[in-house]
């Protein structure tokens, strides 16, 4: 469990990035911080592994204030995935994945052996192990980034817009993969994004931010979607424009197909007649 207790952050230039932020992040669940840029979400994420120290308040992991920990040791037991992979360009893929275990003193051979297994876990071919990062595609680099974050088997995984720089198709694939991984691995995941669809797809708990690190709403995706706290949230998740409201239109009388259409008139899917129960899953665009 990660707790933020009345955390504030004022940068030396005077900007208040986060103002009196408190939240409990439950263990073994995915919490997504979502908000536009400048909402302080990345700053908050980086307080967990002390890449940023708060100017007021505490960040507490399982009862221990992180301010009392050695930042270097703390970071070695928290996984971190960043945008653009952040891989070390001068290390081969296998050594990139083995980075943290080697820093923690695991013999290199053993760490590499484990790194190869992790490549399997994130769905990469072992033949990529001896390549350098720039020889891989953006999506592959991002998978390596995830493997590297998992290498020391951390309880906590911090993900800072990890899929922001890859194309939409690869992004969907990576999101699915992350959900699958999370089912097996049971980590406490804190995920930062500005993409509300990504947030709803991945989150057990969503935290929606306004500018300046102020929380607009906290809840499960269905709570937020079903009952947006205010105008801001409604507009942010697109509910006010009816973007998420679907209706049915009869399509083809002969086959009995019914089309599901969203508010802007775009077809979102088809309901087929032989399914007695129309599940929302069938209507979700993919």
């Amino acid at each position, binding site marked *: 469990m990660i707790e933020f207790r009345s955390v504030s952050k004022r940068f030396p230039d005077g900007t208040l990035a986060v103002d009196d932020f408190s939240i409990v992040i439950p263990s073994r669940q995915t919490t997504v911080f979502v908000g536009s840029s400048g909402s302080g979400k990345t700053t908050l994420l980086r307080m967990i592994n002390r890449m940023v120290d708060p100017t007021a308040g505490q960040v507490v992991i399982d009862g221990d204030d992180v301010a009392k920990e050695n930042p270097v040791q703390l970071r070695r037991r928290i996984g971190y995935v*960043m945008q*653009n992979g952040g*891989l070390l360009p001068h290390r081969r893929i296998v050594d990139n994945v083995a980075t943290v275990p080697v820093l923690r003193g695991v013999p290199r051979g053993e760490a590499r052996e484990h790194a190869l297994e992790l490549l399997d876990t994130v769905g990469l071919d072992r033949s990529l192990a001896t390549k350098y990062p720039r020889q891989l595609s953006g999506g592959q680099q991002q998978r390596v980034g995830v493997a590297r974050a998992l290498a020391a088997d951390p309880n906590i995984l911090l993900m800072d817009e990890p899929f922001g720089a890859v194309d939409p198709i690869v992004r969907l694939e990576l999101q699915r993969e992350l959900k699958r991984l999370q089912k097996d691995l049971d980590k406490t995941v804190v995920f930062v994004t500005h993409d509300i669809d990504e947030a709803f797809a991945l989150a057990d708990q969503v935290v929606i931010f306004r500018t300046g690190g102020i929380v607009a709403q906290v809840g499960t995706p269905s709570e937020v979607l079903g009952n947006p706290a205010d105008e801001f949230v409604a507009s942010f998740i697109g509910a006010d424009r009816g973007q998420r409201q679907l209706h049915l239109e009869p399509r083809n009388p002969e086959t009995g197909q019914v089309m599901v259409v969203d508010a802007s008139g775009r077809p979102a899917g088809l309901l087929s007649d032989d399914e007695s129960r129309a599940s929302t899953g069938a209507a979700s665009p993919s």
Partner: protein
Amino acid sequence: MNWLFSNFDMVVELTLNHVRLSIIPIIAGFVIAVPLGRLAATGRAARGVIITSTSLLYTIPSLPLFVILPAIIGTKVLSDTNLIVALSIYAVAIMVRAAADAFSSVSVDVKQASLAMGYSKWQQFWRVEFPLAGPVLLAGMRVVSVSTIALVSVGVLIGSENLGYLFFNGKQRGLLEEVVTGIVASLLIALVFDLVLVLLGRILLPWSRKDRTRRSADSETVSLTVTTGGAA
């Protein structure tokens, strides 16, 4: 070629001496410039102060520097140490700017990532920043190497024995062959040093080489052009 054959031993001795006098300043320049360059890359103020002051060093004319140095560092007037120290100063002057650029060229993303992984400051320098600065550092070293080898010749004026002797002696005696020998020999040294530096780069920075699998088509075109160029 008569002159060369009858003076071959002297040419070899002068060449070896020239090499010795060049190597020390080149290495000293690197060792001193790397920490200064890293410091200069920390911020604009640091960069301004360090780059400006080391660049000023380069504006000191070489001959007066050779003459003043014994008074400053207490060496004998005719000692090679004067030459070596002076050349090291010039090497630092060139290399600090290159080193500052080299460390600034390391991507912020990569530095952030290594911080997040749990590298200590020291490990971050040795295992991430220093190797990633390698290609630009190497480019700087190639300039320093050539410039130092050329400057060593001036040392003849303060009694150092190196290939520069062949220029001055040859000019005084009107022996074109002697002058040409001096020029060719220093060129050869410069070429060999450059080759060694490039080879070191290949060995130490394998990741910075052109990607063979993806860009094999490109490099083939390049090598074809080179071959044609050579034939023509």
